[in-house]
């Protein structure tokens, strides 16, 4: 299956995880006992492992798996973090970054197994061996690095074709010198192509550039990093040539060596083969050095490891992933703020124009311009909002492959059915939703679905089904992960919770099944009998819940033993803007998110009944409790009940409540603003917004009122 379309998101997410790991490990070095940091590292490693596995990058998966193992031990308190471990972890991250870089260049993770690092990681778990082994392994690694560096002269990697080889040979015959030169441009340089051009020009004054790597065209198009390599034929000495190159400003370094055709031995060998079988255009570079090494041991390039030859090829090819600009969501927030301020300013202008109308007669010009301004601000507002909305497809489309691989690994037959991939959500939400969904699907595959045998015994389709459905519901997006597997064994969870001391046997007796199932969301709670690399470490569900909650969403699970379970994630469409109903309570304005509102009713005061001393109304057969907002919000002078009152019916799950308000203003799109951390606000206030006249209105959380 082709995974290339998911490559970009994989790369982006991997980098994010790696960056996070870097940060967390740095912090760990400062506070080796901080469990939060350890948990965070563990989760990041876990996610990274899952992602690498999904994409089929085995080496990367192995390395992260071992890293995760170490943290699993640390988490359970079996081993302590030591400074040499931090070093190893950083090496580990570097290696992972190496994989990611390779993947970006060529879609291939490369051939470096990083066995040394894996060994060190394993030694951490068995400290007796670790003390002696770790330094050795480290030095071995260093040695490797050095060897690589020596062999890594850029020009040695240039592939020569036969005419170029001929040209070099001819030049040597004519008594000219042939140099291989590596040029590195300073990383601060802005116009790389221009600098490279000046280098070319400087060299061409006294010689000729036979070949450059990347090609002259690519250099001109700035399709290179900060270094390039040249093979130059010149009558001048090497020092003079290098000096000429260095005289160009913003050149970091220029190194070179007089070369002969033999120095390109790998390619020479290739050329020989080419001569033998002319039909074959090019033999894979990886095979060449193996042949070359014994025949031309003196040539420095021959010592290049297979990996290096690979690299040479990779540098020649263009990166397979196109570059996109990832805009920091905070910058978009700033933009959004500016737009909302602009709208507020426009509204005040409108108000000012209306009031001054009475004084002067000629306002039509101002009004015309105001209308123009309004259409601009509205468009701008919509555009900024749209920038933030992306379909969830980018996240969910990598799951079919994952399920396929899981099916093989777990030896269970299963199929994933997805709907609603085009559902759009705020970028911040989409970015974050990938991990939780991945965990839920793995969970369904590993714990939910039964093996083929059992399914047959139970008279089910031997192929298990996992469903992923996404759809919009009011102001929310609902994502459901459903399976037709075994469902959650409530009794097993109960027993496990008692065994772990999470709850007492007495508590267990009185707890409802629903509450027991919710225990699954606690950290380190896993009912799986054995730890597999699919799931069962108990990191999954608590990550899922904390992530979803951090996005101000909620996750629910419904399960029937033997029939399967359904995980429902409910998330706000966007974190920044919601459609809201503006209401008046007393003399204050409040916003209620339209998503939770069912209907608005005019209720006659005489229809209010008392049930258990609580006010309820009977609405088309449903008994709905009334919530008097004026009381809940501590209003000083609540209005007297008139003959009838306005009741906003809100819904949470399958529960309803009627909110009594004094007046309705209307529907409005509101920008949600944070109130900061200073106000330890009550749960019923979910935030604040700024109205057109600059006034602040509070947003009521209907869910908290039910």
């Amino acid at each position, binding site marked *: 299956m082709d995974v290339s379309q998911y490559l970009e998101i994989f790369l982006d997410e991997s980098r994010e995880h790696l960056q996070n790991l870097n940060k967390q490990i740095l912090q760990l070095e400062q506070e080796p006992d901080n469990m939060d940091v350890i948990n965070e590292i563990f989760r990041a490693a876990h996610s990274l492992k899952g992602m690498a596995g999904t994409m089929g990058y085995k080496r990367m998966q192995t390395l992260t798996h071992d890293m995760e193992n170490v943290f699993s031990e640390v988490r359970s308190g079996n081993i302590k973090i030591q400074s040499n471990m931090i070093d190893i972890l950083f090496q580990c991250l570097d290696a992972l970054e190496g994989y990611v870089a390779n993947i970006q260049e060529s879609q291939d993770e490369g051939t470096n197994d990083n066995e040394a690092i894996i060994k060190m990681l394993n030694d951490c778990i068995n400290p007796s061996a670790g003390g002696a082994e770790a330094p050795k392994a480290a030095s071995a690694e260093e040695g490797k690095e050095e060897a690589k560096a020596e062999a890594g002269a850029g020009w040695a990697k240039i592939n020569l074709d036969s005419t170029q080889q001929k040209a070099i040979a001819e030049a040597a015959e004519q008594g000219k010198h042939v140099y291989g030169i590596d040029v590195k441009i300073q990383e601060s340089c802005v116009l790389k192509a221009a600098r490279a051009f000046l280098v070319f020009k400087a060299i061409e004054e006294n010689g000729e550039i036979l070949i450059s790597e990347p090609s002259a065209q690519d250099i001109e198009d700035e399709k290179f990093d900060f270094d390039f390599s040249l093979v130059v034929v010149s009558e001048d000495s090497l020092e003079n040539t290098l000096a000429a190159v260095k005289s160009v400003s913003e050149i970091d370094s220029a190194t070179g060596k007089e070369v002969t055709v033999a120095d390109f031995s790998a390619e020479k060998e290739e050329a020989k083969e080419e001569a033998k079988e002319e039909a074959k255009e090019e033999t894979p570079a990886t095979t060449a050095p193996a042949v070359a090494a014994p025949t031309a041991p003196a040539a420095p390039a021959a010592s290049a490891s297979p990996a290096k030859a690979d690299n040479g090829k990779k540098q020649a090819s263009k990166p397979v992933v196109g570059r996109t600009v990832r805009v920091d969501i905070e910058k978009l927030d700033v933009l959004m*703020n*500016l737009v*909302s*301020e602009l709208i*507020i300013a426009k509204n005040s202008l409108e108000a000012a124009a209306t009031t001054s109308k009475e004084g002067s007669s000629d306002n039509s010009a101002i009004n015309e311009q105001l209308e123009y301004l309004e259409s601009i601000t509205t468009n701008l507002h919509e555009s900024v909002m749209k920038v933030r909305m992306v379909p969830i497809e980018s996240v969910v489309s990598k799951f079919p492959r994952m399920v396929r691989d899981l099916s093989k690994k777990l030896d269970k037959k299963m199929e994933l059915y997805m709907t609603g991939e085009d559902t759009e959500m705020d970028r911040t939400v989409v970015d974050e939703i990938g991990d939780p969904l991945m965990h839920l699907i793995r969970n369904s595959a590993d714990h939910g679905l039964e093996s083929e045998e059992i399914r047959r015994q139970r008279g089910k389709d031997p192929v298990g089904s996992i469903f992923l459905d996404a759809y919009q519901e009011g102001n929310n997006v609902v994502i459901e992960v459903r399976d037709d597997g075994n469902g959650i064994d409530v009794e097993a969870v109960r027993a496990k919770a008692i065994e772990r001391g999470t709850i007492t046997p007495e508590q267990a007796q009185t707890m409802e099944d629903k509450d027991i199932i919710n225990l699954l969301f606690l950290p380190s709670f896993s009912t799986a009998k054995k730890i597999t690399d699919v799931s069962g470490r108990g990191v999954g569900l608590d990550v899922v819940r904390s992530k979803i909650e951090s996005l101000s969403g909620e996750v629910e699970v419904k399960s029937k033993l033997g029939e399967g379970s359904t995980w429902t994630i409910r998330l706000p469409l966007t974190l920044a803007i919601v459609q809201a109903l503006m209401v008046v309570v007393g003399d*204050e304005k409040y916003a209620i998110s339209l998503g939770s509102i069912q209907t608005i009713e005019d209720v006659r005061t005489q229809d209010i009944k008392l049930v258990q001393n609580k006010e309820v109304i009977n609405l088309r057969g449903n008994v709905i409790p009334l919530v008097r907002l004026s009381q*809940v*919000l*501590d209003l000083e002078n609540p209005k007297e009940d008139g003959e009838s009152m306005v009741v906003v019916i809100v819904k949470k799950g399958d529960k309803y409540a009627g909110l009594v308000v004094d007046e309705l203003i209307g529907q409005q799109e509101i920008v949600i*603003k*944070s*109130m*900061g*951390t*200073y*106000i*330890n*606000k*009550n749960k*019923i*206030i979910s935030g*604040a917004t*700024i109205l057109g006249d*600059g*006034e*602040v*209105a*509070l947003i009521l959380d209907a869910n908290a009122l039910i």
Partner: protein
Amino acid sequence: MEALETSATLIQYIIVKMGDEQFGIDISYIDNIVRMQSMTRVPKVADYIKGVINLRGEVIPVVSMRIKIGIDPDEYTNKTRIIIVKAEEYGRIGIIVDEVREVITLNSDDIDRISKSKDDRATYLQGVGKVNDTLVSILDLNALLSTEQA
């Protein structure tokens, strides 16, 4: 003696008036000073939080200094101002004061540290400074904004 002199530093304070008393607030904490404006009450919060205001698109909580330091409740006049301070822990917060008078520079030697007594008000003070024969109580902003009930 010499050592003491060299360690002395000059700090600028904004002098605000609350009732008959003058208080100094370290100028480095101050982000902005705005006129009294309409506030939105927030239900179910501590009594000293008077509400939130819109400061150029940002929603900022506003604290009544009078209630916090335990003197008579505010009376808003033409001179009432909201001082927007940047608190390390909580971001920007507004503090209502009766009047903003001037900026003064005090040498840290001119401030007498006061012992934190059981007296409620003293907990919000860093010390007392002397300016032209009048006394200025230097506020300890972190203590003033602390959300723990005194």
